[in-house]
Protein backbone atom coordinates (compact mmCIF):
# COMPACT_ATOMS: atom_id res chain seq x y z
CA UNK A 1 0.00 0.00 0.00
CA UNK A 2 1.63 3.16 -1.20
CA UNK A 3 -0.05 5.41 1.36
CA UNK A 4 1.62 3.54 4.16
CA UNK A 5 4.87 5.32 3.78
CA UNK A 6 3.81 8.96 3.84
CA UNK A 7 2.61 9.27 7.44
CA UNK A 8 5.72 7.63 8.81
CA UNK A 9 7.81 10.42 7.40
CA UNK A 10 5.68 13.01 9.18
CA UNK A 11 5.42 10.97 12.34
CA UNK A 12 8.05 13.03 14.06
CA UNK A 13 5.73 16.05 14.05
CA UNK A 14 2.58 14.52 15.54
CA UNK A 15 2.06 11.44 17.55
CA UNK A 16 -0.41 9.36 15.54
CA UNK A 17 -3.16 7.60 17.51
CA UNK A 18 -2.50 3.90 18.22
CA UNK A 19 -3.48 1.62 15.34
CA UNK A 20 -6.39 0.14 17.33
CA UNK A 21 -7.79 3.65 17.64
CA UNK A 22 -7.26 4.24 13.93
CA UNK A 23 -9.16 1.05 13.24
CA UNK A 24 -12.09 2.39 15.28
CA UNK A 25 -12.02 5.56 13.25
CA UNK A 26 -12.07 3.75 9.93
CA UNK A 27 -14.87 1.58 11.23
CA UNK A 28 -16.98 4.57 12.23
CA UNK A 29 -16.38 6.44 8.98
CA UNK A 30 -17.16 3.42 6.79
CA UNK A 31 -20.28 2.79 8.84
CA UNK A 32 -21.65 6.30 8.66
CA UNK A 33 -20.58 7.31 5.17
CA UNK A 34 -23.27 7.34 2.53
CA UNK A 35 -20.74 6.41 -0.17
CA UNK A 36 -17.75 4.08 -0.33
CA UNK A 37 -14.66 5.87 0.96
CA UNK A 38 -11.19 5.84 -0.58
CA UNK A 39 -8.05 5.49 1.50
CA UNK A 40 -7.10 9.02 0.54
CA UNK A 41 -10.40 10.34 1.89
CA UNK A 42 -9.97 8.32 5.07
CA UNK A 43 -6.52 9.72 5.61
CA UNK A 44 -7.80 13.23 4.97
CA UNK A 45 -10.47 12.84 7.61
CA UNK A 46 -8.38 11.09 10.22
CA UNK A 47 -5.88 12.89 12.46
CA UNK A 48 -2.48 13.66 11.10
CA UNK A 49 -0.13 10.71 11.02
CA UNK A 50 -2.79 8.05 10.69
CA UNK A 51 -2.43 5.19 8.26
CA UNK A 52 -5.91 4.37 7.03
CA UNK A 53 -4.56 1.63 4.77
CA UNK A 54 -3.08 -0.30 7.62
CA UNK A 55 -6.11 0.30 9.85
CA UNK A 56 -8.31 -1.04 7.03
CA UNK A 57 -6.32 -4.26 6.87
CA UNK A 58 -6.92 -4.78 10.57
CA UNK A 59 -10.58 -3.92 10.23
CA UNK A 60 -11.08 -6.27 7.31
CA UNK A 61 -9.56 -9.07 9.31
CA UNK A 62 -11.75 -8.29 12.29
CA UNK A 63 -14.91 -8.52 10.21
CA UNK A 64 -13.95 -11.76 8.54
CA UNK A 65 -16.74 -14.27 8.98
CA UNK A 66 -18.95 -11.72 10.68
CA UNK A 67 -22.43 -10.64 9.66
CA UNK A 68 -20.92 -7.58 8.07
CA UNK A 69 -17.92 -7.39 5.71
CA UNK A 70 -15.52 -4.70 4.64
CA UNK A 71 -15.51 -4.79 0.86
CA UNK A 72 -13.55 -2.95 -1.78
CA UNK A 73 -15.56 -1.39 -4.53
CA UNK A 74 -13.54 0.34 -7.23
CA UNK A 75 -10.76 1.92 -5.27
CA UNK A 76 -13.02 2.72 -2.33
CA UNK A 77 -14.13 0.77 0.73
CA UNK A 78 -17.53 0.15 2.22
CA UNK A 79 -19.21 -2.12 4.70
CA UNK A 80 -21.89 -4.50 3.57
CA UNK A 81 -23.92 -7.23 5.17
CA UNK A 82 -22.64 -10.71 4.40
CA UNK A 83 -24.09 -12.21 1.25
CA UNK A 84 -25.27 -15.40 2.93
CA UNK A 85 -27.51 -13.35 5.21
CA UNK A 86 -29.35 -11.59 2.42
CA UNK A 87 -32.46 -13.57 3.28
CA UNK A 88 -32.70 -11.43 6.42
CA UNK A 89 -33.08 -8.37 4.25
CA UNK A 90 -36.30 -9.60 2.82
CA UNK A 91 -39.53 -9.20 4.57
CA UNK A 92 -42.36 -11.28 3.41
CA UNK A 93 -45.63 -9.61 3.94
CA UNK A 94 -48.71 -11.68 3.53
CA UNK A 95 -51.63 -9.64 2.47
CA UNK A 96 -55.09 -11.04 2.75
CA UNK A 97 -57.60 -9.70 0.32
CA UNK A 98 -61.23 -10.39 -0.05
CA UNK A 99 -62.10 -12.38 -3.12
CA UNK A 100 -63.93 -10.31 -5.71
CA UNK A 101 -67.65 -10.71 -6.15
CA UNK A 102 -67.17 -12.11 -9.65
CA UNK A 103 -64.73 -14.69 -8.33
CA UNK A 104 -67.00 -15.72 -5.47
CA UNK A 105 -69.97 -16.11 -7.76
CA UNK A 106 -67.98 -18.08 -10.29
CA UNK A 107 -66.61 -20.28 -7.56
CA UNK A 108 -70.08 -20.79 -6.13
CA UNK A 109 -71.46 -21.85 -9.49
CA UNK A 110 -68.64 -24.28 -10.00
CA UNK A 111 -69.18 -25.72 -6.53
CA UNK A 112 -72.93 -26.12 -6.98
CA UNK A 113 -72.95 -27.27 -10.57
CA UNK A 114 -69.68 -29.06 -11.12
CA UNK A 115 -68.56 -30.23 -13.57
CA UNK A 116 -69.54 -27.06 -15.36
CA UNK A 117 -68.35 -25.40 -18.56
CA UNK A 118 -67.51 -21.75 -18.94
CA UNK A 119 -70.56 -21.27 -21.15
CA UNK A 120 -72.75 -22.72 -18.44
CA UNK A 121 -71.23 -20.47 -15.82
CA UNK A 122 -71.95 -17.52 -18.05
CA UNK A 123 -75.47 -18.63 -18.57
CA UNK A 124 -76.09 -18.87 -14.86
CA UNK A 125 -74.36 -15.63 -13.95
CA UNK A 126 -75.91 -13.81 -16.86
CA UNK A 127 -72.60 -12.12 -17.63
CA UNK A 128 -69.44 -13.30 -19.31
CA UNK A 129 -66.76 -14.73 -17.06
CA UNK A 130 -63.43 -13.00 -17.41
CA UNK A 131 -60.39 -15.08 -18.08
CA UNK A 132 -58.69 -13.45 -15.08
CA UNK A 133 -61.35 -14.67 -12.70
CA UNK A 134 -61.01 -18.28 -13.75
CA UNK A 135 -57.21 -18.03 -13.83
CA UNK A 136 -57.21 -16.61 -10.32
CA UNK A 137 -59.30 -19.50 -9.02
CA UNK A 138 -57.11 -21.99 -10.85
CA UNK A 139 -53.99 -20.37 -9.45
CA UNK A 140 -55.38 -20.49 -5.94
CA UNK A 141 -55.99 -24.17 -6.60
CA UNK A 142 -59.58 -23.90 -5.53
CA UNK A 143 -60.78 -25.13 -8.92
CA UNK A 144 -59.27 -27.39 -11.56
CA UNK A 145 -60.19 -28.71 -14.96
CA UNK A 146 -62.61 -31.62 -14.98
CA UNK A 147 -63.15 -34.00 -17.84
CA UNK A 148 -64.39 -32.61 -21.15
CA UNK A 149 -68.06 -32.57 -21.79
CA UNK A 150 -69.49 -34.94 -24.40
CA UNK A 151 -71.22 -32.11 -26.19
CA UNK A 152 -70.26 -30.53 -29.51
CA UNK A 153 -66.91 -28.82 -29.23
CA UNK A 154 -66.12 -31.01 -26.21
CA UNK A 155 -65.75 -28.00 -23.86
CA UNK A 156 -63.58 -28.26 -20.74
CA UNK A 157 -65.32 -28.27 -17.42
CA UNK A 158 -64.35 -26.97 -14.04
CA UNK A 159 -64.62 -28.72 -10.71
CA UNK A 160 -63.61 -27.70 -7.20
CA UNK A 161 -60.49 -29.14 -5.59
CA UNK A 162 -59.80 -30.78 -2.23
CA UNK A 163 -58.09 -27.47 -1.31
CA UNK A 164 -61.38 -25.76 -1.84
CA UNK A 165 -63.18 -28.21 0.42
CA UNK A 166 -60.45 -27.72 2.96
CA UNK A 167 -60.72 -23.96 2.80
CA UNK A 168 -64.48 -23.98 3.30
CA UNK A 169 -64.55 -26.82 5.76
CA UNK A 170 -66.61 -29.14 3.59
CA UNK A 171 -66.46 -32.89 3.32
CA UNK A 172 -67.72 -32.76 -0.23
CA UNK A 173 -69.37 -30.29 -2.57
CA UNK A 174 -72.62 -32.11 -1.89
CA UNK A 175 -72.60 -30.73 1.62
CA UNK A 176 -73.27 -27.28 0.26
CA UNK A 177 -76.70 -26.18 1.42
CA UNK A 178 -79.50 -25.99 -1.10
CA UNK A 179 -81.58 -22.92 -1.74
CA UNK A 180 -84.26 -24.02 0.73
CA UNK A 181 -81.67 -24.28 3.46
CA UNK A 182 -80.11 -21.01 2.47
CA UNK A 183 -83.47 -19.35 2.79
CA UNK A 184 -84.26 -20.86 6.15
CA UNK A 185 -80.83 -19.69 7.29
CA UNK A 186 -81.85 -16.17 6.31
CA UNK A 187 -79.34 -16.01 3.50
CA UNK A 188 -81.96 -15.30 0.91
CA UNK A 189 -83.67 -12.04 1.46
CA UNK A 190 -86.24 -11.87 -1.28
CA UNK A 191 -88.93 -14.44 -1.43
CA UNK A 192 -89.40 -16.06 -4.80
CA UNK A 193 -92.75 -17.59 -5.77
CA UNK A 194 -93.04 -20.88 -3.82
CA UNK A 195 -93.35 -23.00 -6.90
CA UNK A 196 -90.09 -21.73 -8.33
CA UNK A 197 -88.11 -22.26 -5.13
CA UNK A 198 -89.35 -25.80 -4.81
CA UNK A 199 -88.38 -26.44 -8.37
CA UNK A 200 -84.93 -25.08 -7.72
CA UNK A 201 -84.48 -27.16 -4.63
CA UNK A 202 -85.58 -30.21 -6.46
CA UNK A 203 -83.20 -29.33 -9.18
CA UNK A 204 -80.48 -29.17 -6.57
CA UNK A 205 -81.34 -32.58 -5.31
CA UNK A 206 -81.33 -33.88 -8.83
CA UNK A 207 -77.99 -32.39 -9.49
CA UNK A 208 -76.67 -34.06 -6.36
CA UNK A 209 -77.64 -37.35 -7.84
CA UNK A 210 -76.31 -36.71 -11.23
CA UNK A 211 -74.91 -33.31 -11.84
CA UNK A 212 -73.91 -33.95 -15.38
CA UNK A 213 -77.49 -34.14 -16.39
CA UNK A 214 -78.25 -30.66 -15.24
CA UNK A 215 -77.12 -28.85 -18.33
CA UNK A 216 -77.69 -31.52 -20.82
CA UNK A 217 -81.44 -31.38 -20.85
Amino acid sequence: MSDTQTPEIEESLFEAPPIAEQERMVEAVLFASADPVTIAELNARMPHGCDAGEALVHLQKRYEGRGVHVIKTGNAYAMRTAGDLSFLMQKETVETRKLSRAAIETLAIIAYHQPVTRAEIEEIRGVSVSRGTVDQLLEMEWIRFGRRKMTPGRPVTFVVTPDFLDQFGLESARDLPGLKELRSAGLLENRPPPSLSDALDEEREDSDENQTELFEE
Partner: protein
Amino acid sequence: MTPDTTETAKDWDGDARERLSVEDRMAAEALIVDVDGYEGPLDILLSLSRTQKVDLRKISVLQLARQYLLFVERAKELRLELAADYLVMAAWLAFLKSRLLLPPDPTEEGPSGEELAAHLAFQLERLQAMRDVAARLMARDRLGRDFFVRGIPEVIERVRKVTYSATLLDLMQGYARIRTRDEFRPFVMDRDAVYTMEEALGHMRGLIGFSGKWTDISSYLPEDWQKDPIKRRSATAATFAASLELVKEGKAELRQSGLFEPIELRRREQSE
Protein backbone atom coordinates in the same frame (compact mmCIF):
# COMPACT_ATOMS: atom_id res chain seq x y z
CA MET B 1 -44.17 24.81 55.67
CA THR B 2 -40.58 24.06 54.80
CA PRO B 3 -37.68 25.56 56.75
CA ASP B 4 -36.76 27.47 53.60
CA THR B 5 -39.96 29.41 53.54
CA THR B 6 -39.64 30.28 57.22
CA GLU B 7 -36.29 31.72 56.43
CA THR B 8 -37.76 33.64 53.56
CA ALA B 9 -40.40 35.02 55.87
CA LYS B 10 -37.64 36.36 58.12
CA ASP B 11 -36.08 38.05 55.11
CA TRP B 12 -39.28 39.85 54.33
CA ASP B 13 -39.31 41.54 57.73
CA GLY B 14 -35.77 42.66 57.22
CA ASP B 15 -36.52 43.83 53.75
CA ALA B 16 -39.38 46.00 54.78
CA ARG B 17 -37.41 49.21 54.73
CA GLU B 18 -34.54 47.97 52.65
CA ARG B 19 -33.72 50.01 49.63
CA LEU B 20 -32.71 48.49 46.34
CA SER B 21 -29.02 48.70 45.75
CA VAL B 22 -27.72 50.66 42.81
CA GLU B 23 -26.72 47.41 41.18
CA ASP B 24 -30.26 46.10 41.44
CA ARG B 25 -31.62 49.24 39.92
CA MET B 26 -29.17 48.96 37.05
CA ALA B 27 -30.18 45.39 36.47
CA ALA B 28 -33.85 46.28 36.62
CA GLU B 29 -33.32 49.05 34.12
CA ALA B 30 -31.33 46.84 31.84
CA LEU B 31 -34.32 44.56 31.71
CA ILE B 32 -36.54 47.30 30.48
CA VAL B 33 -34.44 47.92 27.43
CA ASP B 34 -35.03 44.44 26.14
CA VAL B 35 -38.49 43.28 27.17
CA ASP B 36 -38.99 41.44 23.92
CA GLY B 37 -36.20 39.00 24.70
CA TYR B 38 -38.08 37.68 27.72
CA GLU B 39 -40.40 34.74 27.81
CA GLY B 40 -43.14 36.14 29.95
CA PRO B 41 -43.37 37.58 33.47
CA LEU B 42 -42.01 34.46 35.17
CA ASP B 43 -38.89 34.77 33.05
CA ILE B 44 -38.48 38.42 34.11
CA LEU B 45 -38.95 37.42 37.74
CA LEU B 46 -36.32 34.73 37.36
CA SER B 47 -33.89 37.24 35.90
CA LEU B 48 -34.66 39.74 38.65
CA SER B 49 -34.18 37.08 41.30
CA ARG B 50 -30.62 36.59 40.10
CA THR B 51 -29.81 40.10 41.28
CA GLN B 52 -30.44 38.87 44.83
CA LYS B 53 -27.50 36.53 44.41
CA VAL B 54 -29.01 33.89 46.69
CA ASP B 55 -30.24 30.38 46.29
CA LEU B 56 -33.70 30.47 44.75
CA ARG B 57 -35.01 28.74 47.87
CA LYS B 58 -33.92 31.68 49.98
CA ILE B 59 -35.20 34.33 47.66
CA SER B 60 -36.95 37.32 49.14
CA VAL B 61 -40.25 37.26 47.37
CA LEU B 62 -41.15 40.66 48.80
CA GLN B 63 -38.04 42.21 47.36
CA LEU B 64 -38.70 40.44 44.09
CA ALA B 65 -42.23 41.81 43.99
CA ARG B 66 -40.87 45.28 44.56
CA GLN B 67 -38.30 44.86 41.81
CA TYR B 68 -40.92 43.66 39.40
CA LEU B 69 -43.33 46.50 40.21
CA LEU B 70 -40.49 48.93 39.73
CA PHE B 71 -39.74 47.34 36.39
CA VAL B 72 -43.36 47.74 35.31
CA GLU B 73 -43.32 51.36 36.50
CA ARG B 74 -40.25 52.05 34.43
CA ALA B 75 -41.73 50.40 31.42
CA LYS B 76 -44.76 52.64 31.74
CA GLU B 77 -42.55 55.74 32.09
CA LEU B 78 -40.75 54.75 28.92
CA ARG B 79 -44.15 54.14 27.32
CA LEU B 80 -43.25 50.60 26.47
CA GLU B 81 -46.15 48.41 25.50
CA LEU B 82 -46.31 45.61 28.01
CA ALA B 83 -48.27 42.49 27.21
CA ALA B 84 -51.31 41.87 29.40
CA ASP B 85 -49.75 38.97 31.30
CA TYR B 86 -46.95 41.24 32.53
CA LEU B 87 -49.58 43.57 33.95
CA VAL B 88 -51.59 40.72 35.43
CA MET B 89 -48.43 39.57 37.20
CA ALA B 90 -47.84 43.11 38.45
CA ALA B 91 -51.34 43.27 39.90
CA TRP B 92 -50.90 39.89 41.51
CA LEU B 93 -47.54 40.87 43.00
CA ALA B 94 -49.00 44.12 44.34
CA PHE B 95 -51.66 42.04 46.05
CA LEU B 96 -49.04 39.64 47.34
CA LYS B 97 -46.95 42.53 48.63
CA SER B 98 -49.87 43.93 50.61
CA ARG B 99 -50.63 40.49 52.04
CA LEU B 100 -47.03 40.08 53.12
CA LEU B 101 -46.75 43.52 54.70
CA LEU B 102 -50.09 43.71 56.48
CA PRO B 103 -50.66 41.61 59.58
CA PRO B 104 -52.77 38.59 58.70
CA ASP B 105 -56.50 39.08 59.05
CA PRO B 106 -57.92 35.94 60.71
CA THR B 107 -61.37 36.51 59.17
CA GLU B 108 -59.95 36.61 55.67
CA GLU B 109 -60.36 33.47 53.59
CA GLY B 110 -57.93 32.01 51.13
CA PRO B 111 -54.22 31.32 51.22
CA SER B 112 -51.91 33.42 53.31
CA GLY B 113 -49.29 35.73 51.83
CA GLU B 114 -46.62 33.26 52.89
CA GLU B 115 -48.31 30.45 51.04
CA LEU B 116 -48.61 32.54 47.91
CA ALA B 117 -45.00 33.63 48.20
CA ALA B 118 -43.86 30.06 48.70
CA HIS B 119 -45.68 29.01 45.58
CA LEU B 120 -44.06 31.77 43.54
CA ALA B 121 -40.66 30.70 44.87
CA PHE B 122 -41.51 27.12 43.87
CA GLN B 123 -42.51 28.22 40.38
CA LEU B 124 -39.26 30.09 39.94
CA GLU B 125 -37.21 27.20 41.21
CA ARG B 126 -39.07 24.80 38.94
CA LEU B 127 -38.63 27.00 35.88
CA GLN B 128 -34.94 27.35 36.64
CA ALA B 129 -34.65 23.59 37.08
CA MET B 130 -36.37 22.98 33.76
CA ARG B 131 -33.95 25.35 32.07
CA ASP B 132 -31.01 23.61 33.62
CA VAL B 133 -32.09 20.17 32.50
CA ALA B 134 -33.03 21.50 29.07
CA ALA B 135 -29.45 22.73 28.73
CA ARG B 136 -28.12 19.38 29.90
CA LEU B 137 -30.38 17.60 27.47
CA MET B 138 -29.29 19.72 24.53
CA ALA B 139 -25.64 19.24 25.50
CA ARG B 140 -25.94 15.47 25.23
CA ASP B 141 -24.41 13.60 22.35
CA ARG B 142 -26.94 14.01 19.60
CA LEU B 143 -27.88 11.84 16.70
CA GLY B 144 -26.55 13.31 13.48
CA ARG B 145 -24.20 15.61 15.36
CA ASP B 146 -22.19 13.39 17.68
CA PHE B 147 -23.19 9.91 16.74
CA PHE B 148 -24.40 8.66 13.42
CA VAL B 149 -26.64 6.17 11.78
CA ARG B 150 -25.68 3.78 9.05
CA GLY B 151 -24.79 5.80 5.98
CA ILE B 152 -25.89 3.23 3.42
CA PRO B 153 -28.88 1.60 4.99
CA GLU B 154 -29.95 -1.50 3.15
CA VAL B 155 -33.58 -1.29 2.43
CA ILE B 156 -35.50 -4.31 3.46
CA GLU B 157 -36.95 -5.79 0.37
CA ARG B 158 -40.60 -6.42 0.78
CA VAL B 159 -41.79 -9.59 -0.78
CA ARG B 160 -45.50 -9.27 -1.03
CA LYS B 161 -47.57 -12.35 -1.02
CA VAL B 162 -51.27 -11.99 -1.49
CA THR B 163 -53.70 -14.54 -0.24
CA TYR B 164 -57.38 -14.29 -0.91
CA SER B 165 -59.98 -15.06 1.60
CA ALA B 166 -63.59 -16.02 1.22
CA THR B 167 -65.87 -17.72 3.67
CA LEU B 168 -68.49 -20.33 3.11
CA LEU B 169 -71.01 -17.61 3.87
CA ASP B 170 -69.63 -15.47 1.03
CA LEU B 171 -69.90 -18.43 -1.25
CA MET B 172 -73.46 -19.27 -0.34
CA GLN B 173 -74.60 -15.68 -0.44
CA GLY B 174 -72.97 -15.33 -3.84
CA TYR B 175 -74.82 -18.34 -5.12
CA ALA B 176 -78.08 -17.24 -3.58
CA ARG B 177 -77.63 -13.86 -5.21
CA ILE B 178 -77.35 -15.39 -8.66
CA ARG B 179 -80.15 -17.87 -8.27
CA THR B 180 -82.63 -15.36 -7.00
CA ARG B 181 -81.69 -12.45 -9.23
CA ASP B 182 -84.44 -13.25 -11.76
CA GLU B 183 -87.08 -13.21 -9.08
CA PHE B 184 -86.72 -9.52 -8.48
CA ARG B 185 -89.35 -7.24 -9.96
CA PRO B 186 -89.31 -3.51 -9.68
CA PHE B 187 -91.30 -2.22 -6.75
CA VAL B 188 -94.75 -0.99 -7.68
CA MET B 189 -97.57 0.24 -5.52
CA ASP B 190 -100.48 -2.09 -5.74
CA ARG B 191 -103.39 0.16 -6.56
CA ASP B 192 -106.37 -2.08 -7.17
CA ALA B 193 -108.77 0.48 -5.72
CA VAL B 194 -107.66 3.28 -8.02
CA TYR B 195 -109.57 4.17 -11.16
CA THR B 196 -107.20 6.17 -13.32
CA MET B 197 -108.12 9.12 -15.47
CA GLU B 198 -106.90 7.19 -18.49
CA GLU B 199 -109.34 4.41 -17.71
CA ALA B 200 -112.16 6.93 -17.20
CA LEU B 201 -111.29 8.69 -20.44
CA GLY B 202 -111.32 5.43 -22.38
CA HIS B 203 -114.64 4.50 -20.84
CA MET B 204 -116.21 7.89 -21.55
CA ARG B 205 -114.92 8.25 -25.10
CA GLY B 206 -117.00 5.24 -25.95
CA LEU B 207 -120.12 6.72 -24.41
CA ILE B 208 -119.93 10.45 -25.13
CA GLY B 209 -121.07 10.16 -28.73
CA PHE B 210 -124.45 8.94 -27.56
CA SER B 211 -125.03 11.68 -25.01
CA GLY B 212 -126.86 14.48 -26.75
CA LYS B 213 -128.52 15.80 -23.62
CA TRP B 214 -127.27 16.82 -20.22
CA THR B 215 -126.43 13.79 -18.09
CA ASP B 216 -125.09 13.60 -14.55
CA ILE B 217 -121.45 12.51 -14.81
CA SER B 218 -122.03 10.04 -11.99
CA SER B 219 -123.95 7.94 -14.48
CA TYR B 220 -120.71 7.46 -16.38
CA LEU B 221 -119.15 5.52 -13.48
CA PRO B 222 -118.54 1.91 -14.44
CA GLU B 223 -120.93 -0.42 -12.69
CA ASP B 224 -118.44 -2.30 -10.56
CA TRP B 225 -117.00 1.02 -9.27
CA GLN B 226 -120.25 2.28 -7.78
CA LYS B 227 -120.73 0.18 -4.65
CA ASP B 228 -117.49 0.35 -2.67
CA PRO B 229 -117.15 3.92 -1.33
CA ILE B 230 -113.38 3.93 -1.82
CA LYS B 231 -113.68 2.75 -5.39
CA ARG B 232 -116.54 5.12 -6.01
CA ARG B 233 -114.58 8.12 -4.81
CA SER B 234 -111.66 7.23 -6.99
CA ALA B 235 -113.88 6.62 -10.01
CA THR B 236 -115.76 9.89 -9.46
CA ALA B 237 -112.56 11.90 -9.34
CA ALA B 238 -111.19 10.14 -12.42
CA THR B 239 -114.45 10.61 -14.32
CA PHE B 240 -114.57 14.30 -13.45
CA ALA B 241 -110.95 14.76 -14.55
CA ALA B 242 -111.70 12.86 -17.75
CA SER B 243 -114.75 15.10 -18.33
CA LEU B 244 -112.58 18.20 -18.04
CA GLU B 245 -110.18 16.62 -20.51
CA LEU B 246 -113.06 16.04 -22.97
CA VAL B 247 -114.21 19.65 -22.57
CA LYS B 248 -110.68 20.80 -23.22
CA GLU B 249 -110.62 18.74 -26.38
CA GLY B 250 -113.85 20.45 -27.43
CA LYS B 251 -115.79 17.22 -27.44
CA ALA B 252 -118.12 17.92 -24.51
CA GLU B 253 -119.68 20.59 -22.36
CA LEU B 254 -120.00 20.67 -18.59
CA ARG B 255 -122.37 22.53 -16.35
CA GLN B 256 -123.38 22.75 -12.72
CA SER B 257 -126.49 24.65 -11.63
CA GLY B 258 -125.27 25.45 -8.14
CA LEU B 259 -122.93 24.55 -5.34
CA PHE B 260 -123.00 20.79 -4.68
CA GLU B 261 -125.55 20.32 -7.45
CA PRO B 262 -124.94 17.46 -9.85
CA ILE B 263 -122.36 18.09 -12.57
CA GLU B 264 -123.84 17.45 -15.96
CA LEU B 265 -122.19 16.60 -19.24
CA ARG B 266 -123.32 16.49 -22.85
CA ARG B 267 -121.77 16.04 -26.26
CA ARG B 268 -120.70 19.21 -27.92
CA GLU B 269 -122.20 19.54 -31.33
CA GLN B 270 -119.56 19.88 -34.03
CA SER B 271 -120.97 23.09 -35.54
CA GLU B 272 -117.84 23.95 -37.45
